[in-house]
């Protein structure tokens, strides 16, 4: 249960981190290590070097931008739980953060680390897909932006290049009528979820995203889920058609059995109920 020997680097700037990453193809980024640590200890991951990016000032800050917020990649779940991100999403992020693993993990696990690892059952992936979050990515040729939808390629696979680094997560501000809901089912508190439903609506702005995630299946995002409601009014959770939602997931290619599909449809319903205050 001891990791293999590896080198350790602690860059003080994004540029230095990229340089080190570029020079060390066998290196892994350490952004908190709450998933990587267990994998290292079990020797499932055997890197030549760990590049610890948690002391780069830009990565540990939350900044209000004109149209939203930019959360540094190394901001911990615990910081978000404790209210570090204000001015967006009505406390939705705080609540999602407070349900991730355990407090002793949340104090070191980071939002950027979680997204870069792209576990299909991870909370941030589902929660932020509903918000249509964008990632700011630094690489050799400068900064680029990527929608989270395009960034995640599947279970533990992302569009991150070998010498690239997630710098920040950008979340747009929504109107005063925006509502959010998040529900998950875990076998044991703090474990990876079997099923996650996440929803964000701003009907005045025509914004409505519904996410089914959890387990090992790639998440499914409904960018316009109004068709899943029996009644035309998508603000009324009672109209949500659970059977139709389960069928839609199956048709979207989610290779899950009937139990898993209905579990996902039901957590989506609960998330919608929460958003609607019902």
């Amino acid at each position: 249960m001891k990791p293999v020997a590896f080198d350790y680097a602690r860059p003080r700037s994004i540029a230095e981190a990229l340089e080190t990453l570029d020079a060390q193809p066998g290196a892994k980024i350490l952004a908190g290590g709450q998933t990587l640590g267990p994998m290292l200890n079990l020797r499932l991951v055997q890197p030549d070097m760990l590049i610890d990016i948690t002391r780069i000032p830009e990565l540990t800050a939350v900044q209000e931008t004109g149209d939203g917020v930019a959360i540094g990649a190394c901001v911990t779940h615990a910081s978000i739980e404790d209210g570090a991100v204000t001015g967006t999403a009505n406390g939705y992020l705080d609540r999602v953060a407070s349900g991730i693993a355990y407090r002793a993990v949340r104090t070191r696990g980071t939002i950027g680390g979680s997204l870069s690892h792209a576990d299909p059952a991870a909370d941030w992936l589902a929660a932020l897909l509903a918000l249509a979050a964008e990632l700011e990515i630094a690489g050799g040729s400068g900064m680029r932006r990527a929608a989270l939808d395009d960034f995640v390629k599947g279970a533990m696979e992302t569009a991150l290049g070998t010498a690239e680094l997630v710098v920040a997560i950008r979340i747009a501000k929504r109107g005063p009528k925006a509502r959010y809901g998040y529900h998950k089912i875990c076998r044991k508190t703090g474990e990876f979820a079997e099923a996650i439903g996440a929803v964000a609506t701003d009907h005045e702005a025509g914004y409505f995203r519904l996410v089914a995630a959890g387990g090992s299946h790639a998440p499914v995002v409904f960018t316009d889920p109004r068709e899943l409601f029996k009644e035309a009014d998508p603000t009324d959770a009672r109209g949500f058609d659970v059977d139709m939602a389960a069928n839609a997931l199956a048709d979207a290619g989610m290779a899950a059995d009937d139990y898993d599909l209905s579990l996902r449809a039901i957590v989506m319903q609960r998330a919608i109920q929460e958003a609607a205050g019902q």
Partner: protein
Amino acid sequence: MTRITLTVNGTKVTREVAPRTNLADFLREDLVLTGTHVGCEHGICGACTVVIDGEIARSCITYAVTCDGAEIRTIEDFDDDPLMKKLRHAFSAEHALQCGYCTPGMLVAARDLVRRGAARDEDAIRVGMSGNLCRCTGYVGIVKAIAAVACDHEVSEKTAVSADALGPAPGPAAQDSLRETRGNVTSPAQKEQRAARAAAPTLASPSGMNVQTGEITQDGSFTKLTQTITVNHPRDAVWNLMADIEKVATCMPGVSLDGPARDGHVDGRMLVKLGPINADLKGEADVTRDADNWRGVIDGKGRDARSASLARGRVEYELTETDDGKGTLIAVSIAYSLAGPLAQFSRGAIVRNLVNRLAGAFAQNLEAKLEGRDVEQGAQALNAGSLVLSVLWDRLRSFFTRLFGRKPG
């Protein structure tokens, strides 16, 4: 070795540590602070919980080198802490421990829960303490003890978020004694693996092929799944191709053979990439065929030396004619089992998806071979899930188009 300076229980210490030494081992073995217990060593049990810069953390998955400049508090530092005193008495009064192995971690975590005002009621205590496992008490005494202390504790130390310390402790402002890292320790095996990793996977595009996945079942340690693949080629052609073990092997992503097959026996390896995990399964396979019934069986096993994980698999296939002999239906049943750390870490469903996708990729490549198209030779590792989401999007789009006559977003 890397030099670090940190404060442990109020005393400044400077030590040389190997980067792979975790904080728990550093505390126990270098500083002989054996109150911090090591249970699972992979962040599950909570026995190793300590305080780093005021926040609790798991010291088994936190490396000592990352704590350079931090302030650490272990259970030994709480002798005179008023809140911890109350918790100790309550743990004793409520019989909240038996063997005591989990207790240092329990106490450190419980103190943090009470301190943050998060021990509101029994439910909140159970949720808040769910990251600390106890195998003796059944938790009832532990919950009672914490509730007893929490009900008369005034929360004064409520966590305040300070804008410049939002990352894992100790953060950018901490003192830094990192001087140098050792030279590159890349082994030849790692270099070889890196080269294999760099070889991009290629999948031949399907043409008129249809893959259906049936039910996935569990039989002891074996997971079984079935697939039916329909190809637009006569049964003879498919059967003959399947006779060529080397050709069949090149259809399987990540597989390479050490040499030609002898009496249906081959030695070889299979590279599988699952996120940051790279498994290199070295092993062998035996192929038997029953020409009278158009059936074949491939039995294989392999071992990943780096993680000491074992994989076993059995593939059975049967060919039936379809479409008046112009096509062939290949009924495939795959049974596999994993043992060792790989199985311990990987959640079953992720591996099931991977095997399913490997089987799908195999079918596509087989179709390409039947059409005389080339499949990239050699060790092409398939990235688990690299295609999943795009497939989903495409299918989702077609679903919406079909159902509602328009595309989503």
